[in-house]
């Protein structure tokens, strides 16, 4: 007997012996689960279970039974219907809950609490239901084209009903926003409720844009007001710290929401707390922070400005750069442009350079734009004072090279000298520096004031790099001359020892090579016989071995130690040669008038006056002035001070000689200026020769580029006129603004 499906039931023995082939065919139509069965199962077991879960009632059947029922239904290909039924049931349930909520008249707080509860319940119910329908979930997922699973479907249902109810949506959002508000005001809120609500919005992907909008609007208003309040009441650092704290607080507050909302809120904060107030912040106390080198606070400022700068159209870093540049400019201007503070100009500049460096490196974290701009501004401002900075840098270096190790350690000195070189690089008018440095070095060498040969040498190597070898060759020549002179003096003494031609005068001569040393004025002094003899003796000696050379004696830097026998005691007086000439006159005569001294010595009036002042009106008055007073006049007369007596034997009356007199300073600068004029003329001729024809403005531009020292335009124009007059160039007859080269 055959029946469908019964072929398999055949006796295996029968099968073997029948020798018929065994064919197994599938069902032509798969078996269908009867609808009856489905509905029954659903009604009786599943639905009840679902409802029980939703009502928080105990479930009648065991979870395993229910699970198997679901499996059956699934195997019976009732998945689509099952899902539909499930979905409908969930929707019905949540719709009712939300409607009840809608209809109620709860306070905002209670409303939120209800939403929270509804969602929490729904969520856990969904999980339970899903565990019952797990098989469906798996089979559903595999067999359908949707990529959702049951859980997602449940959530979607929730979202659908929640969104459909405008009242629920609006009230929830308002409620959340008001919680934020309260928290900001400092009121106590239920933080975990708040977080849960946000998580609900985030994880269900409920209409986040509306929530986001509301949060942003409220935040904008809040911070717009708060920022102004805070800005007015607080100083700059307090405000910045307030901003920083707020930013982290707010970020923390909505950390459950999506990144884009968090980012949007940050933007609102940054805009209202920072971007809109950048200039006020800077005006509040930026300068003071820089003044007091408050690195940590400036770091904070820098950080926050960095954040603000990322906003479109916000030029926070540019503002910072400009503010800092302005600060630098002002400070440098204060240091450099007040002639009464010239003596402290260089130390102040060095300190300020250090400060700028620290601020740029540490506070502004090596921001290139800020560092470069401030450096340039500093340089520009230093050079707004023409020529003087160069002079004072030279002076300061002189000071250090004289003081040497007495006050500072070797390292300190080296680092200070390095810093001075850096400053030097920034200054225009290096020719002034060179002139003064040379003169100061000359004085140091001739008066033996160098503290350390090592330092001098290291300076020279540094200067070689900055000024070129032609300049340092001169300096090196000066050192050599001094060394050589020592040797020469040695030979001189050896030679003359027996002859004793000098009598009891000890002579030391420095032979200086012209060209290495700064120029010294020609003088026609009237030396007393003894000194003249010394001079002659030496000259003869020297020229014996150097026949082709010419010696020209310079007296300005000469000094003597005189043995002075006063009635009360003897003294040794260290005096300049000029002073010596004057004093020796009193060997013969007790009183002399100004005019007599002038005639007898051949000194210039200004030098004479200065020398007489130092001898008659200073600390050690070896001669007395009549009439008494602090100024030397032509009608004065001077008298030997027979009552002179001081506790120490050895007295220095020539200490100012080692310093530069105002005339010397003026002369140095004048020489440099003359050189410059010469350079300008050469440059003009050179340029014109090359171009043959040029407009005035082009010429000026070229000159400004080529000439490295400060050169005001009127000076350039004067030189151009001079060259026109002397027929090097001419004006173009057709165009007054053009020049032509005249061959």
């Amino acid at each position: 007997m055959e029946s469908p499906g019964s072929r398999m039931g055949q006796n295996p023995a029968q099968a073997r012996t029948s020798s018929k082939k065994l064919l197994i065919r599938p069902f032509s139509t798969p078996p269908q689960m009867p609808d009856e069965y489905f509905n029954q199962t659903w009604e009786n077991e599943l639905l009840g279970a679902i409802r029980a879960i939703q009502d928080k009632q105990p479930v009648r059947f065991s979870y395993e039974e229910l699970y198997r029922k679901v499996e059956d239904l699934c195997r019976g290909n009732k998945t689509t219907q099952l899902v539909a039924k499930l979905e409908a049931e969930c929707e019905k349930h949540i719709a009712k809950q939300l409607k009840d909520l809608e209809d109620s008249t709860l306070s905002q707080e209670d409303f939120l609490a209800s939403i929270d509860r509804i969602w929490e319940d729904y969520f856990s119910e969904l999980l339970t239901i899903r565990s019952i329908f797990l098989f469906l979930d798996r089979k559903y997922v595999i067999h359908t084209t949707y990529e959702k699973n049951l859980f997602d479907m449940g959530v979607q249902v929730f979202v659908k009903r929640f969104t459909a109810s405008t009242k629920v949506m609006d009230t929830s959002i308002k409620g959340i926003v008001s919680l934020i508000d309260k928290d900001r005001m400092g009121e106590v809120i239920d933080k975990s409720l708040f977080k849960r609500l946000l998580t609900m919005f985030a994880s269900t992907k409920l209409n986040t844009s509306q929530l986001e909008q509301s949060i942003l609007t409220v935040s904008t208003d809040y911070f717009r007001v708060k920022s102004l309040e805070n800005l007015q009441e607080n100083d700059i650092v307090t405000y910045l710290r307030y901003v920083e704290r707020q930013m982290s607080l707010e970020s923390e507050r909505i950390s459950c929401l999506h990144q884009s909302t968090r980012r949007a809120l940050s933007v609102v904060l940054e805009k209202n707390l920072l971007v809109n107030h950048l200039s006020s912040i800077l005006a509040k106390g930026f300068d003071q922070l820089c003044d007091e080198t408050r690195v940590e606070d400036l770091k904070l400022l820098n950080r926050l400005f960095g954040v603000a700068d990322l906003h479109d159209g916000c030029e926070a870093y540019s503002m910072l750069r400009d503010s800092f540049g302005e600060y630098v400019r002002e400070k440098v201007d204060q240091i450099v442009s007040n002639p009464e503070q010239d003596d402290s100009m260089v130390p102040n500049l060095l300190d300020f350079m250090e400060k700028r460096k620290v601020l740029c490196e540490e506070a502004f974290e090596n921001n290139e734009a800020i560092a470069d701009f401030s450096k340039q501004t500093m340089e520009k401002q230093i050079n707004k004072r023409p020529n003087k900075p160069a002079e004072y840098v030279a002076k300061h270096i002189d000071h250090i090279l004289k003081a040497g190790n007495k006050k500072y350690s070797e390292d300190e000195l080296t680092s200070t000298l390095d810093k001075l070189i850096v400053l030097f690089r920034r200054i225009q008018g290096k020719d002034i520096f060179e002139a003064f440095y040379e003169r100061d070095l000359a004085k140091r060498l001739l008066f033996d004031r160098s503290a350390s040969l090592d330092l001098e040498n290291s300076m020279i190597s540094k200067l070689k790099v900055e000024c070129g070898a032609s300049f340092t060759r001169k300096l090196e020549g000066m050192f050599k001359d001094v060394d050589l002179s020592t040797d020469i003096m040695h030979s001189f003494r050896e030679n003359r020892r027996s002859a004793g031609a000098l009598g009891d005068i000890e002579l030391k001569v420095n032979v200086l090579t012209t060209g290495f040393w700064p120029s010294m004025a020609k003088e026609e002094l009237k030396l007393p016989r003894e000194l003249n003899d010394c001079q002659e003796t030496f000259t003869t000696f020297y020229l014996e071995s150097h026949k082709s050379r010419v010696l020209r004696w310079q007296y300005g830097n000469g000094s003597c130690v005189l043995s002075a026998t006063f009635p009360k005691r003897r003294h040794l007086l260290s005096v300049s040669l000029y002073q010596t000439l004057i004093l020796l006159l009193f060997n013969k005569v007790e009183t002399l008038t100004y005019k007599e001294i002038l005639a007898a010595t051949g000194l210039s009036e200004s030098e004479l006056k200065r020398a007489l002042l130092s001898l008659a009106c200073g600390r050690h008055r070896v001669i007395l002035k009549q009439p008494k007073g602090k100024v030397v006049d032509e009608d004065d007369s001077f008298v030997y001070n027979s009552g002179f007596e001081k506790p120490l034997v050895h007295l220095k009356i020539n200490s100012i000689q080692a310093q530069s007199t105002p005339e010397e300073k003026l002369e140095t600068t004048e020489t440099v200026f003359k050189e410059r004029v010469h350079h300008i003329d050469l440059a003009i001729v050179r340029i014109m020769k090359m171009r043959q024809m040029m407009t005035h403005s082009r010429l000026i531009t070229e000159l400004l580029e080529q000439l490295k020292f400060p050169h005001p335009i009127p000076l350039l124009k004067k030189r151009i006129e001079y060259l026109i007059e002397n027929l090097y160039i001419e004006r173009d007859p057709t165009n007054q603004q053009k020049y032509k080269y005249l061959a």
Partner: protein
Amino acid sequence: MPGYREKDAISLFNKYKEEDVDKIGLDGLERLYGDLSISLDDIVTLLFAWRLNTGTLCEITKDEFLSGLRGMRVCDIRSLKSSIENLRPLIYDQKNFRDFYLWCFDYFRDSRYKTMDLETAKAVWAQLLKEQYTHLDLWLEFIEANACAISRDTYSVFLNFTWSVADDFSGYDDTAAWPVLIDEFVEYARGKLAEREQEI
């Protein structure tokens, strides 16, 4: 209309020339202009000198006189006078005036020096630019105090200056090619004008 006849021209010349040299000197000029009824201060006398291209101040050589008259096609006093009068409008023509003005520098300059001394320069300007430059008085005041001699370049550029710079000196650019003396003048003049305004 009389043209040029060498004979008449020569006799005219002889009437005014110096006794023993062939040139009309200061004395002769005085008489000449007296006869022409032209004041010696009149600018046309200079224009005449310019036309004749006389080399030396207050002198006219025979050649200069003759070739000048030949050029003007006159040889008697009356037509000479009207020709000279006809020179007057030339000062209103820019190009001619410029040539004349530049010629005056060399004419009045002491030929031993490259520059013109201050007194002469002042006189020349006073005469030539009398009606032509509004601030002539300020300029003369200024250079009296601030300059020692006037170079040809300054003299020449000054004319351009009077022509091209506004009366209130607006738009004057001191970084342009104007000589430094003129830059300083502008500063001086501006100050003076401001003072005058305040007084009003």
